[in-house]
């Protein structure tokens, strides 16, 4: 991937900023807006000072009117602009469902191709430090359910940049999901502009014993779990789907044909979730695969850390289940792995 490009180590938040900046530079039609888009903190730096660099009609704050502002983005996109609508939390998208599902996702179909809606909706998933029931939801399955929408959830800075540029250039509405615990993740990223292909996943770690598929931040945790699993002789393959709709079913099917075991670790609730979609596809299309899933506990997210730690899957709960699936000792208690990004998170809230 991108063999000949100059690369630099930057973090996930910087990758989003770079993608936005370069696209705004390239194309006057690109603009970014949303609550606090031009505020001093600039959404973890991802929109920092864009209003100063490109003018306040190209990066602006809005009233608290998520529903209306989604419609504004759709209308602007129909008129040929390429809006990036930014949300501080995915939970707020619940206010925008009518515009996203009834309008954006269907515009092309109901006009038989006369119109398209090149709108990117950037949404951050929160967690921990007391965010609680209303500030920690990860509702990817809602958007995956709806034809006409694309959904991506990059994990690495590389894919964050290439994925955002691809989303901006895509002529369909794209829900771009970022995770607050990933902003500080660092990695090599090409300095120039580049796109990843929406719809292609990536094997982040090869292995033969079990296939683990994560989503967004749980990809990180799955990688950590794969480290733990080494100690019990289990060699896990870890897949980052990157794109949730369209899904790269092939990459997962190919992996499970080899490992015969599939563990999907969703970063969201499981019922009718991402994990059910992946397991169902495998159940229909591949033979004799053992499947399991993990995800949010079946309740709203509690604020207190003593309960919250049981709400999310974590490297050791992932490793424990994967090991059991591989016939390992069910009493194995993997050590707790320090999730630095979570412990060190102290806002901005």
């Amino acid at each position, binding site marked *: 991937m991108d063999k000949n490009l100059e690369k630099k180590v930057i973090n996930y938040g910087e990758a989003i900023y770079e993608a936005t900046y370069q696209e705004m530079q390239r194309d006057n039609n690109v603009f970014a807006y949303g609550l606090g888009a031009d505020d001093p903190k600039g959404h973890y730096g991802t929109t920092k000072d864009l209003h100063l660099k490109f003018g306040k009609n190209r990066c602006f704050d809005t009233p608290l009117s998520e*529903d209306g502002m989604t419609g504004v983005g759709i209308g602007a996109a129909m008129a040929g602009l390429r809006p990036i609508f930014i949300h501080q939390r995915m939970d707020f998208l619940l206010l925008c469902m009518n515009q996203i599902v009834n309008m954006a996702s269907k515009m092309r179909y109901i006009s038989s191709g006369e119109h398209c809606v090149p709108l990117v909706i950037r949404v951050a998933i929160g967690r921990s430090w007391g965010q609680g029931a209303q500030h920690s939801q990860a509702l990817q399955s809602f958007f995956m359910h709806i034809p006409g929408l694309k959904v991506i959830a990059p994990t690495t800075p590389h894919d964050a940049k290439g994925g955002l540029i691809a989303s901006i250039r895509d002529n369909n509405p794209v829900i771009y999901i970022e995770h607050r615990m990933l902003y500080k993740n660092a990695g090599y990223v090409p300095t120039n502009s580049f796109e990843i292909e929406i719809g292609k996943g990536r094997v982040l770690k090869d292995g033969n014993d079990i296939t683990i598929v994560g989503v967004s931040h749980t990809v990180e945790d799955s990688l950590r779990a794969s480290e733990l699993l080494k100690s019990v002789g289990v060699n896990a393959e870890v897949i980052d789907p990157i794109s949730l709709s369209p899904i790269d079913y092939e990459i997962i099917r190919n992996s499970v044909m080899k490992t015969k075991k599939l563990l999907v670790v969703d970063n969201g609730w499981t019922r009718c979730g991402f994990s059910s979609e992946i397991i169902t596809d495998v159940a229909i299309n591949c033979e004799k695969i053992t499947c399991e899933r993990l995800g949010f506990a079946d309740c709203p997210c509690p604020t207190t850390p003593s309960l919250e730690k049981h709400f999310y899957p974590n490297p050791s709960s992932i490793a424990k289940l994967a090991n059991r699936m591989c016939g390992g000792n069910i009493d194995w208690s993997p050590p707790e792995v320090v999730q630095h990004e979570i412990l060190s998170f102290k806002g901005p809230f």
Partner: protein
Amino acid sequence: MKNQFDIKKAYYLFLLIRKSEEKIIELYNSDKIKSPVHLSIGQEAIAVGVSLALSKSDIIFSNYRGHAHFIAREANLDKMWAELYGKSRGTARGKGGSMHLNDISKNFMPTSAIVTSAIPEAVGYAFALKYKKKNSVVICYHGEGATDEGVFWESLNFASLHDLPIIFICENNRYAIYSHQNTRSINDPIVSRAISFGIDAERISGNSTEEFFKATIRCKEKIKNNSKPQLLECMTSRWQDHVGVTQPELSKEEENNIKKAIKHDDLKNLENKLSKDEVLHIKKRVNKEIEHAIKFAEASDFPRSSELLENVYY
């Protein structure tokens, strides 16, 4: 767009709408039309008056009750009929139906069946016009019922905050399906609310094509001068049922209102201002155009089954 009201053209467009709607009623029970229809009979004056005041480059957002707006904009009648028939030469190749008409060549945007949903989009389009420094304006037709939705006020707030070139045309027929406006808000408040949201707003009573025309001209001028968004509350009445071609179940009072409105039918007023010859000529033309459209629709095929999955994504 001229600042002079063109009676002949107004009469022609008005008649074309009226006769099209009547033709729909005539054909509806034959099951040729494959789509529920929300007729505009009684409300045509608004669409005609407004449309005559527009330029080619102006942008139209309408709704599920969009036949009048579509026809008054001189959008493609053949394709509209084919769409009603569910045929592949329709405005959306049969995939949209009456509630989702569109004609990009006339800047007539796809309409929505979800009340108020296209209004923030109209505002977004106006935002784009300003962004690109275009001179056009956006026309956003909607019912008085649409103002019940919170997103309506979010839209007005954003339009006024950004001084966007948009004219909201509120077609106040007093009803949302069977609900009278009084059961949904008190004090007949649309103009006063719009003003409190920073919009220049005015009520136009009388259901007169020419008055709607003049008011729209005024709005366009005001937008040119002070670039403030505009709202016209156009008082009117709908003579048919909310949807379909059945007769509405009406209160005595409403029945009388409609009788009165029918007596003052602006189509007759316009007709009276023209010569017999002019009228005859226009009537012929209208009949011919509608016949042509129906033939076009009949002759068109249904879409192939492979089209089912086309145009989901770009």
